[in-house]
């Protein structure tokens, strides 16, 4: 066990993958000489050379599209998208090619790509540098989606993603890059739990809080605060967003009967909607209250000075905990929803 930041752990994960399998290639903008704008790939160019670690031209579709070609040739490309907000030029290649080629060819062509995305907000960044696009990829069949929240997972799950024969979109929360944790660098891939499993980050009895990425930390902070008020939160780190480990989730919800799910992305058709719906499908009879979403608003990511009014914090999670416990909360939820009592409600248009 070694103490290290998540950023360092990710670098170790890449180095290990490059060492273990000479078909692994790391590519992206500024990942070579500079070591990436977050220095995750620092030192890899010097160690593995430009045949394995490729500074690419500035074009995301080009990066992912050429990675597809490398995969055709039997390589396992690990692509870095410099920031979350810059993945969209590659969307066509990801959705129509990366996600579909295995299906298109009845399994003949494998796409073992890993697309690493420094991700999400809370770091005071400029526009397009704090986006949470994970739902787009979760909605895309053929992709697996991972979001890590601590150094050990970052290290192991990145290795697992690279070793996986399916394409994996791998989200790394920027706001945790510098957070430290214990990492065991010697784990064998064969000994690691499967990549698709959730992690119970804290045991609790009263409410199940589902989180991923940096929100896991916020949820854990909320759990500490709740404990002081006598409320026991179980915090589950989903880790895998596609597929979600509903065994672990449902077992918890069936015990607590109350659910709060939190993420930074807007709620509308977000991962939280998927999780709530799936929980309702599996645990309806056990639910004591409607599950609550605590998410970013359905707005473009706001300017940095206002981001604290967008990224859900500990207090908003606790407010939702109050709601699912039927206690008075500041945000009244939808009970006071004026829309529902409007004169137009239920109007038949035709």
């Amino acid at each position, binding site marked *: 066990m070694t103490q290290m930041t998540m950023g360092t752990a990710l670098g170790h994960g890449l180095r290990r993958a490059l060492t273990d399998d000479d078909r692994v290639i790391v590519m992206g903008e500024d990942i070579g000489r500079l070591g990436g704008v977050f220095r995750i790939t620092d030192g890899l160019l010097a160690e593995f050379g430009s045949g394995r670690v490729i500074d690419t031209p500035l074009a995301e579709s*080009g990066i992912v599209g050429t990675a597809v070609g490398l995969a055709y040739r039997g390589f396992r490309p690990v692509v870095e998208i410099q920031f979350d907000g810059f993945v969209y030029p590659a969307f066509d290649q990801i959705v129509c090619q990366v996600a579909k080629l295995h299906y298109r060819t009845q399994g003949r062509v494998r796409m073992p790509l890993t697309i690493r995305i420094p991700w999400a907000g809370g770091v005071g960044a400029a526009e397009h540098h704090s986006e949470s696009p994970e739902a787009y990829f979760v909605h895309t069949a053929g992709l697996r989606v991972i979001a890590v929240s601590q150094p050990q997972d970052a290290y192991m799950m990145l290795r697992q993603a690279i070793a996986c024969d399916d394409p994996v979109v791998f989200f790394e929360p920027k706001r945790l890059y510098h957070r430290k944790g214990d990492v065991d660098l010697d784990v064998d891939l064969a000994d690691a739990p499967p990549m698709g499993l959730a992690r119970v980050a804290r045991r609790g009895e009263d409410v199940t809080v589902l989180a991923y990425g940096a929100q896991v930390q916020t949820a854990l902070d909320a759990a500490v605060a709740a404990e002081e008020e006598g409320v026991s939160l179980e915090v589950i780190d989903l880790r895998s967003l596609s*597929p979600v*480990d509903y065994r672990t989730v449902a077992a918890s919800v069936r015990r607590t009967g109350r659910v709060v799910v939190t993420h930074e992305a807007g709620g509308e058709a977000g991962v939280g909607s998927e999780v709530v719906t799936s929980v309702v499908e599996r645990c309806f009879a056990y639910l004591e209250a409607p599950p609550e979403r605590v998410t970013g608003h359905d707005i473009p990511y706001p300017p940095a000075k206002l981001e604290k009014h967008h990224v859900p914090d500990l207090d908003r999670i606790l407010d939702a905990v109050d709601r699912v416990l039927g206690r008075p909360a500041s945000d009244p939820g939808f009970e006071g929803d004026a829309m529902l009592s409007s004169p137009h409600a239920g109007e038949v248009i035709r």
Partner: protein
Amino acid sequence: MMHTLNPTAEPATDTDDVARLVRADGTRVADAELDRWVEDVDHEMLRGLYRDMALVRRIDAEGVALQRQGQLGLWAPCRGQEATQIGTARALRPEDFVFPSYRELGVGFVRGAQPSDVVLAWRGEVHSTYDHRRMRTAPPQIIIGAQTLHAVGYAMGVQRDGADEIAVTYFGDGATSQGDVNEAMVFASSFGAPVVFVCSNNQWAISEPVTVQSRFPIAGRAPGFGVPSMRVDGNDVLACLGAMRWAADHARSGRGPAFLEAVTYRMGPHTTSDDPTRYRSAEEEERWARRDPLERLEALLRHEHAWDEDFASAVAGEADAWAAAVRDATLGAVSREPLTVFDDVYAEPHAGLAAQRDRYAAYLDGFSDEEATR
């Protein structure tokens, strides 16, 4: 420091401003750049090229017929483009790797497609058929231009493997407007990747004439990216063979990517759903009919006394047999089982999808029970 193109930008529509070895009437003409690449081409080879083109034309006609009969959902005819496809594809080695678009029946044929390979996707039985390991050819791409980047990436892989191979990608004139095709040239040039770009400029992107995409010859795009290019008569199979040999040699010998614009014509509709009378004139179609690539090669063979009726009927027989096999493959197609829709979404087990599959299997079971008891 003005940059201009040499030869200076002519209008894209001057379709005679091309490298050519055989005129429309079948007479041979010299070309300083191409001649040396076809020195070895004897009558036997020419007849082989003719046979390929004739077979492809026949298969193409069969595809159209099968679609008209409701046996295929759609067909994208390649009639008129046989010289481009056969000439270039015959210049490749088996170990090279090809990334074609949906219209490259002739390329697929040369790469070893079997009768079922050319129809089952159009019939809607499967999304693609080519065994990329055997044919060293990717499934025909529908997303315009996307495959060009795959070819460049593949070629980067070839570089890394130190292999004596190249990648080739085919795309249309319309495709040249897509960002992906331009990014492909950027990456290819930046890494000096051994890849050949073949643009089949068939004058149309569905209803849009090539001038909507480019007012100047498409071959002129490549040099600005640092990619040498050649504009070749795409209805002259000998010129296409020669040009592709030049381009392949350029790429194979470590000098980086090369680009061909083959000036040809889509004699048929865009697909069987299309109605070209809405956007182009009969006069234009007739003009191009006089440049038919098969007639041209036949005329050359006749001039050179290398044509005889035995050959013609042997080819026709072979073509009919191929077409019959295509028809059989179509009519004999057996649709896959319902639950195969869940197959191969992932290469490794996926808990969520497995659960969906189980539910749908139970549903189908229940449903058939119900059917049975009704």
